[in-house]
């Protein structure tokens, strides 16, 4: 006698198929979602690669300029012209060297690394204020515009000491602690300023003892 198909068997098979189909769809969805995160065209990954390369180059430039014992970056921070109230050889206090080449090894490295590839960069020095309650202060070494959203930055810190002198050709033999850090002429707008005799230098004596300040050189590239 012919065996009739068992409706329970067919139902179980259909249920199993349904569950498996759901798993397939969910797995595919999960895989698709994950693939989106790591796809080169999403999440800025391609741009991230370029930024990582720029970051590495900026780090290397500062490490090369500051990593030897001849104090090139320290000299740059003290290459100050009191009469022009900006760095010696710079354009003006607002943009510093602007589009001009920076002096010393840092200028050579920045020129060879970024200028030659049509990259723009700003260089600033950031230093501690004399009054700890105030925020960090900064002076433009070279300002070439407003950085884009994809800009990267690299930093290097140098230590200045009380008995150091300015390194510009026009500077005298006065030590750093002898300079006035108030930008007003003759201290007219700086009632709290102590009356030093050796002119203006923006970096104050912010540390007790032999250390004068810790200055951060920051390069922003875009």
């Amino acid at each position, binding site marked *: 006698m*012919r*065996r009739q*198909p068992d409706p329970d*068997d067919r139902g179980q*098979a259909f249920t*199993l*198929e349904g569950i*498996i*189909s759901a*798993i*397939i769809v969910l*797995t*595919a969805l*999960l*895989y698709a979602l*994950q*693939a989106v*995160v*790591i796809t080169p065209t999403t999440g800025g990954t391609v741009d991230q690669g370029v930024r*990582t390369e720029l*970051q*590495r180059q900026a*780090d*290397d430039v*500062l*490490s090369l300029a*500051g*990593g030897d*014992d001849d104090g090139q970056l320290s000299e740059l921070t003290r290459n100050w012209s009191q009469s022009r109230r900006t760095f010696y050889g710079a354009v003006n206090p607002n943009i510093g060297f602007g589009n001009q080449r920076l002096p010393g090894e840092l200028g050579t490295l920045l020129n060879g690394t970024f200028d030659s590839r049509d990259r723009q960069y700003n260089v600033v020095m*950031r230093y*501690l204020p004399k009054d*700890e309650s105030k*925020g*960090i202060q900064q002076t433009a070494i070279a300002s070439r515009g407003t950085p884009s959203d994809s800009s990267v930055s*690299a*930093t*290097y*810190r*140098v*230590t200045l*000491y009380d*008995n150091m002198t300015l390194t510009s050709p026009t500077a005298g033999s006065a030590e750093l602690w002898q300079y006035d850090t108030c930008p007003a002429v003759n201290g007219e707008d700086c009632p709290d300023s102590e009356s030093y005799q050796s002119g203006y230098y923006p970096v104050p004596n*912010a*540390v*007790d*003892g*032999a*250390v004068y*300040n*810790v200055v*951060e050189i*920051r390069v922003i590239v875009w």
Partner: protein
Amino acid sequence: MIDAGRPEEESNGFDRRGQLLLVGAVVLAIIILGLSVVVNTVLFTENVGTGEARVEAPAIEEFSFESQKSARSLMLRLNAADRTDTIAEVDESISDQISAYSDATARSYAASGTVFVDIEYSETLDEGTRIVQGTDRKFTYPASGSDEPDWDPVNQGLGSVNPANLGWMVLNVNLRNTSGDQATLEITSEGGENIEYRFNRSDGGNGPNLRVNVSGSTVSGTDAVACGSVSGRVLLDLRTGQAFSSDCTFEGINEIDGPYERIRITNGDNLAGQYDIIVNENDSSSESIGFDDGSGPEDWDRDCTSGDGGPCISPVVWQGQIDLAYRSADVNFGTVRNITVYDP
């Protein structure tokens, strides 16, 4: 009678096999998809992990390098700050000022991001001795009765005394009181090599320059060089063989290999000014720093705490140890570094 049920039964058998084949294929597909997800996840996580660590590597390297350089610079300055300090006072001063530097650096890092840094002076590993004449006078030894012009600021000739490495040797010559006649300074190494400097004021004692003539076992005959003065003073680094305030250069003491057995001054009454000599030996129970005032080698006995202007000895830190810490959201870095203040 025709069995109408046979084809239907065969058809149901094929359906079941078809369903089984379908289920098998689907299970295989799930396994492949699952493995793809797992492999993909592993690669993704690994990339992100190494990337974050690598990004901070230059920052840590810079922090470590600059911290060591600054600590050495501070120790160098504080060793020479006050010649009347005891070694305990020098240690305390170094510890305090490295702490102030650490605070300043931490403020600088905190202003730029969420990084904490700390630098601590942990201990002095090796003491040295600074032989110093801190006020202007002739390069003589103040013996009882009269000053001795021929003497040895360093003489390690005693039986139990080791030769000394030289870390610093700077003369600050007062040209106005320097004679046109020559004074001689001779350095002899443990290996028997020697280098000799002869100093005199130019133009028979009335000129604006200090003449330096160098000879010795490793120096071929050279002409004397004239080192210009600034405000009547000439600052010479004898180790590197250069003047700080003019362009004159000559063979430095580094031309002969240390350690050194003896530094001898002859006719010291022809030369005037100040000097600093720093060696790695000290006057502790385990080491000794000797001199010779003309009566034979003996241990130095003129301590700078007396405060008189003549040559005397003062303790310095030759090598110290610092602890460095760098902490961020992704990196926790700590290390210990030995700082050798003077490079012999």
